């Protein structure tokens, strides 16, 4: 039985195909509702196969985590001196991925950038799910995960409090704050669309959306308050987003480990996060657009703009990388020199050249509009960016630790099946959460799109008909 209720004016009850045949400007509001809700209801065999495969990988990863807990951290490849390996690499990677959501949603909302509208929810969801995956790693890396509550700020039975001078405590509270902030931000902007879904569905979906809509009716007062709250969120979440990756970078930079102890680490981490996050968002949007037939909402102009943002972030990342590298190279300190040699011509060279190639080649490709506006080409290019960024994180974390100021204490690192399985679990877990989210929550923010349509008129300039946005808020 269909879960989609027929909530449309009676005179408009003829059938409609939701293909790319109409521009949004020619659509009635109820048609947009249906165009967003219909793909959510359609879950064919492909969808369930995908869910099963991702679920199986997650289950295997959970087994590996159980193995790690039972046999101890010795079953991971970390050792002395490489005490941080694939877990912390992937933790930094996921925190980085989470940055695009705020970038797209909050920054572009404040700047009143109109092309953000169809992609904000996808970006915000990416932030929330990436942070959930990132948040697992401190627990996994504890080994004795049941001792996690020791970090919660209350005194133990000897009245000792957690040590807030420790960067690991900063890490925990910063990530927790960002997770709370981004989840509430996602949910707040979702309430009007939950009401729309409530009015257009039946059965379990109706019950779910009714609860999530909280009784929304769309009165002027409700809209006014929602706008004010989103405005405050947009401002407040920007310093949080900047602080989170800065704090993650200080986990490294406040040590005296060569190549970590650097003042440039915080901005370098932040810009790297924005680069990888925007690239990941572009990849996800291409996949979801095809999987959910959202071609009408996610168009070439959106990918073009997103591609340009990835390009700018990539150029900024290159600048920060070089600014750090040239100072280290010129300083010529023995251990740093050894580490640079390891990267450029030693055991780490394949990873170094993979990192540089995968991060720099996309910058050349994204200059071309055809690459930015062709979804398949954009997908390949942005996936390449994240291969590069993951490798970069691995080189920073595990690569740098192989050498230090005590040459007798040098070593190497090779991840074990346990670490690889757990890392695969978080990638599959992220994809699984996103896949389920796209079938339960309207992926496109319907009210924001309708609001955008209010702002637009088509104006004749000479022989051209030009869309013109009104300055209203």
């Amino acid at each position, binding site marked *: 039985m269909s879960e989609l209720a027929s909530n449309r004016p009676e005179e408009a009850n003829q059938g409609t195909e939701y293909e790319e045949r109409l521009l949004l400007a020619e659509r*009635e509001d109820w048609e947009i509702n249906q165009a967003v809700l219909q793909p959510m209801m359609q879950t064919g065999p492909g969808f369930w196969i995908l869910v099963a495969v991702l679920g199986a990988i997650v289950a295997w990863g959970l087994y590996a985590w159980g193995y790690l807990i039972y046999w101890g951290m010795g079953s991971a490849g970390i050792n002395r001196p490489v005490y941080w390996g694939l877990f912390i690499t992937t933790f930094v990677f996921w925190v980085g991925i989470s940055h695009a959501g705020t970038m797209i949603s909050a920054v572009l909302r404040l700047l009143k950038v109109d092309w953000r509208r169809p992609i904000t929810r996808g970006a915000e969801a990416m932030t929330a799910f990436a942070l959930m995956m990132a948040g697992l790693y401190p627990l996994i890396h504890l080994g004795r995960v049941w001792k996690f509550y020791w970090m919660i700020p209350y005194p133990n039975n000897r009245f*000792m409090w957690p040590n807030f001078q420790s960067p690991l405590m900063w890490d925990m509270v910063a990530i927790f704050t960002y997770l709370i902030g981004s989840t509430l931000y996602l949910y707040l902007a979702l309430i009007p669309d939950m009401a729309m879904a*409530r009015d257009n569905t039946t059965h379990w979906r109706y019950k779910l959306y009714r609860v999530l809509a909280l009784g929304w*009716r769309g009165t002027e007062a409700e809209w006014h308050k929602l706008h004010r709250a989103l405005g405050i969120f947009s401002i407040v979440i920007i310093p949080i987003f900047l602080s989170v990756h800065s704090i993650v970078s200080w986990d490294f930079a406040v040590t005296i480990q060569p190549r970590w102890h650097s003042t440039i680490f915080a901005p370098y981490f932040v810009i790297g996060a924005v680069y990888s996050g925007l690239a990941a968002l572009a990849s996800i949007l291409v996949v979801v657009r095809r999987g959910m037939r959202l071609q009408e909402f996610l168009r070439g102009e959106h990918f073009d703009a997103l591609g340009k943002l990835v390009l700018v972030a990539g150029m900024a990342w290159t600048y920060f990388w070089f600014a750090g590298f040239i100072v280290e190279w010129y300083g010529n300190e023995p251990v740093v020199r050894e580490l640079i040699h390891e990267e450029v011509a030693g055991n780490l060279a394949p990873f170094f050249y993979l990192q540089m190639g995968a991060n720099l080649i996309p910058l050349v490709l994204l200059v071309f509009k055809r690459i930015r506006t062709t979804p398949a080409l954009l997908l390949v290019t942005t996936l390449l960016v994240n291969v590069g960024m993951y490798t970069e994180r691995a080189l920073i974390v595990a690569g740098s630790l192989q050498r230090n100021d005590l040459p007798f204490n040098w070593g190497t690192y090779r991840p074990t099946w346990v670490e690889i399985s757990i890392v695969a679990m978080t990638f599959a877990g992220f994809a699984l959460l996103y896949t389920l989210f796209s079938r339960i929550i309207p992926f496109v923010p319907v009210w924001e799109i309708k609001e955008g349509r209010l702002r637009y008129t088509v104006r004749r300039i000479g022989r051209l008909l030009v869309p013109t946005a009104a300055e209203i808020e």
Partner: protein
Amino acid sequence: MMDETKSLMALFQSSDDTSDAIDDLHGLGISDDKVVVMTGVPYPKGALGRGLEWLALPYIVLAGAVAGMLFGLFLAVITPHLYRLDVGGHPPVGFPPAAVIIFVFTMMATIVSTFLGVLWEMDFPRFGPAPYHKLVTAGYLTVMLEFPEALEARVRQILESHNVHEISEPERMAL
């Protein structure tokens, strides 16, 4: 003898018609607080000819931020003194770590108080029956009116003169 009160719900397709109708209803003596407009899209400030109510939200947010800052201050500056562990040459509290903790807790409380504050301002969650029409989210501008029964004919005349799509008694539905 007091006038009986009558309620009506009117659906419009155009914002122009809605704002013109509201202006005429004001002219008839129906005050702003007796008119509720529901839309599926946020219309710009003043588009429907109505004033916006004062919000306490910024003050709630400010109070939340101050509370968060004080909590951060307690954790970062006070707790090291509650069980003092002196390490040679180090002060019990360093400014940079304290600044990080105070900043993060201030921001966390600001975010949470914004969320709770806006729910409180909107009186959410509210699942009981309330006057509503499901066509609101299908694009219709819905005006709900309360007025003395004696004015009903005039009110209907005004609504019809502005191309109203449907006039009905407000239906209270579980939200």
